[in-house]
């Protein structure tokens, strides 16, 4: 039996990484979604959950606009829109909320988990949704568990909504002494199944996932729980798990062949997986991933890239694109840089690009125009205006809505970036 080495030789960097690189901190105007947006994918992941935003018409309109064409007959999310009289008296607002929840739950017997999601207006008027959730849980237990978190724009940026949602579930999870690996993050089913399959083949004893698909799936937390984050935006959830005694396994994120291998390797080392087993389980999918990436890398190699802050996926993605596709990051902007979470990716990201945290959108647009990158990763509000100025763009939101983690999606991930460039070459206009 040979022990798995923590730092494989192939990972040695020619240049120093970015962990200690200076960060440009911006505090100006932002052009990002608020955390409510996470509901769009969270409600798909948890088919027995309903997300009830307590907010304004703006919140309802945001959800609808972000969901785009995904109009479902009766989706498992909605907005309890505050009206003038709710603002006048908080006691009445609580009564109104109870009434709406009761009506909703009687119409939807399939709902087992209800999330009350706070918004800017509910927070500004200090409508206490924690109290409401406790009260409603008592009323509807055991059929429905009511929880609450904030997806408000004054507290959360885009993917932080998922972080807040997952973190809100942690305190209520039962305790367990069992030794287990917890994978944290709402992944598309196909990705989740693949990654869990690999971990199982490696011989990792018990692998669980947060969030669980249904309320009945058992999940406990305790001192013998070790967890891997599947997404880089789950800092608060990681902290909540640590408070329950679970231990974080730092790792690069599973984007690309290298990222996936390192992510698995971090778990393999924790669970003392034999080096030969690791090699046997990962060799074939690694080779496939490399092959699939190579097709797109031809287009991407030596092209420069500029990231506007959006989902916090920016640093791991820049690492993947720089190391596996040969791209040259110019600026990597992220809404937050949480070194405890993306530290391993920063180590691997070759030194050079400007790292920026937060945003001052007009100034950042000036920097982007001056740099004229070959590809700009940005939100939907900026993409077409930049295209109209002659800059190729990739909408960042697609990176959160499509399966991009793991070996079998590595080629797809690279293609998401290659396609805008190939399209420009294809069009004769």
């Amino acid at each position: 039996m040979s022990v798995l080495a923590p730092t494989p030789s192939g990972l040695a960097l020619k240049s120093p990484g970015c962990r200690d690189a200076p960060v440009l901190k911006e505090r100006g105007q932002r052009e990002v979604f608020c955390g409510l947006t996470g509901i769009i994918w969270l409600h798909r992941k948890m088919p027995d959950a309903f997300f009830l935003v307590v907010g304004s018409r703006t919140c309802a309109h945001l959800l609808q606009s972000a969901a785009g064409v995904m109009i479902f007959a009766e989706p498992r999310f909605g907005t309890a829109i505050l009206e003038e009289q709710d603002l006048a008296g908080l006691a009445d607002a609580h009564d109104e909320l109870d009434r709406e929840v009761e009506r909703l739950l009687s119409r939807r017997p399939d709902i087992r988990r209800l999330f009350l999601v706070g918004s800017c207006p509910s927070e500004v008027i200090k409508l206490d949704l924690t109290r409401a959730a406790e009260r409603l849980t008592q009323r509807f237990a055991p059929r429905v568990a009511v929880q609450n978190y904030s997806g408000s724009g004054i507290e959360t940026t885009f993917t932080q909504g998922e972080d807040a949602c997952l973190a809100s579930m942690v305190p209520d999870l039962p305790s367990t002494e069992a030794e287990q690996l917890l994978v944290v993050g709402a992944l598309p089913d196909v990705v989740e199944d693949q990654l869990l399959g690999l971990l199982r083949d490696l011989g990792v004893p018990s692998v669980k996932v947060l969030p669980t698909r249904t309320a009945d799936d058992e999940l406990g937390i305790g001192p013998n729980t070790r967890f891997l984050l599947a997404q880089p935006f789950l800092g608060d959830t990681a902290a909540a798990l640590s408070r329950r005694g679970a231990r974080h396994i730092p790792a690069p994120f599973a984007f690309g062949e290298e990222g996936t291998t390192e992510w698995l390797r971090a778990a393999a080392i924790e669970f003392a997986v034999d080096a030969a087993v690791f090699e046997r389980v990962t060799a074939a999918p690694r080779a496939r991933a490399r092959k699939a990436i190579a097709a797109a890398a031809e287009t991407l190699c030596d092209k420069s890239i500029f990231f506007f802050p959006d989902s916090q996926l920016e640093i791991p993605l820049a690492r993947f694109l720089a190391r596996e596709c040969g791209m040259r990051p110019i600026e990597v902007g992220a809404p937050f840089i949480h070194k405890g979470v993306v530290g391993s990716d920063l180590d691997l990201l070759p030194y050079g690009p400007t790292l920026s945290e937060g945003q001052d959108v007009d100034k950042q647009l000036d920097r982007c125009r001056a740099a004229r990158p070959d590809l700009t990763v940005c939100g939907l509000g900026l993409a077409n205006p930049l295209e109209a100025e002659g800059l190729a763009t990739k909408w960042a939101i697609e990176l959160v809505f499509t399966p991009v983690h793991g070996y079998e999606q590595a080629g797809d991930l690279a293609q998401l970036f290659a396609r805008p460039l190939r399209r420009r070459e294809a069009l004769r206009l």
Partner: protein
Amino acid sequence: MKLTVWTYEGPPHVGAIRVATGMEGLHYVLHAPQGDTYADLLFTMIERRGQRPPVSYTTFQARDLGSDTAELFKIACRDAYQRFQPEAIIVGASCTAELIQDDPGGLAETMGLPIPVIPLELPSYQRKENFGCDETFLQIVRTLAVPCERTPEVSCNILGPTGLGFRHRDDVEELSRLLEELGVAVNVVAPMGSRPSDIARLGEAHFNVLLYPETAEGAARWLERRHGQPFTKTAPIGVGATRDFLAEVTELAGLASVSTDESRLRLPWWSSSVDSTYLTGKRVFIFGDATHAMAAARVARDEMGFEVVGLGCYNREFARPLRRLAEEYGVEALITDDYLEVEKTIEALAPEMILGTQMERHIGKRLGIPCAVISAPVHVQDFPARFSPQVGWEGANVLFDTWVHPLVMGLEEHLLHMFREDPEFHDAAGPSHHAGHGPVKLRLVGEDEPVAPTPVNDGAVVWLADAEKELRKVPFFVRGKARRNTEKFAAEQGLGEISVDTLYEAKAHYAR
């Protein structure tokens, strides 16, 4: 508190953004948290605009509350003025900023900017998007329009078009052409297409054409009172309405008689020709903003030969005229902004066709009823590249085409439904003229195809259970391709069975 699933209208500040985005040389400083910047994508993605809306959001955060949100607003105002050099600025609050009561108007006033600053009061917890358009435009007009001499030739303004408006771009073009044919000059089109300096000279026109009452009636009424400009009352959507509109304009312009060229108008013959017989008495349900819904009712009954079985609108402000019209048509008016209520009504009425908004399109999809879109809110496919107005002669032609189009599809779908149950088309029985070949199955678009595949080479390649399960996770619209590629790959590699690995080997092999 009211539980809302989908909304027909956004909040009122989105209406203000629509006005600002339609105009040039105007900037909107909006006191709002970061998430409210989603509104930009309505314009850049749905309408495909190549510029960002002229909006600076202050994007205050929780940590700013209580201390310096007002300061943030002033900084945003100053930066916006310096960077964009607008001719005028509108300032206001979104729903959240309304609660923290920083008074953007008052703050902006103290800054001594050398341009007009127009404060907006848009009550977010009472009103909605159309009100926001109307009120914003009214305030801009009140502030900027000055008394002026009428133009020597007879002229009018066109009021109402905004950013993100349903066919506003094309309606303005068609309408301008009609007015030109009548010999009436267009002085200013606003808000869309105008600058603050154009608003100043609205008073030069002899009268106003109120194209969309939803977005500009307030301004039209104010101009009537203060500048003595009458305005038109007919929305020129459909043949009869366009004729009425032209008569109205002829009178307002003081012209001797209506002189217009109907040679471009094809709807009457298209509707009378025998091919259209099958349209007779089709039961339609109509829902949208009141102006478009009411106009559609007339076209549907009088110009297409449909039977109107339901009529409604989501904007309460126009409930009264819509109720009156519904009574005239002998149907019950449905005034609601509750999507579920609209769905329930449609389900109960079981019409053969829906004329509605993008919401009704989804209802139609679910209930299997064809739907044509006649009103906002609309989606990206309702901003076509081609010229496609709703008003005027060409508008009437467009209505005929767009309303008939889904019906043809509907007919085809009925056939498919019928044959699906037909024993002759049953899975196990091949069509008679293909005796000896494999089974053929008619399939509806979107319906899952059978997962257990027909092997390409007579069972030589076997799908293992896991691989088959994996294949099921591939979205239906690419599943067929994934299956074929994998089988081809397996055959080339001389493999007898397909495992999950084979599936992904093939995927990597064909990656590109």
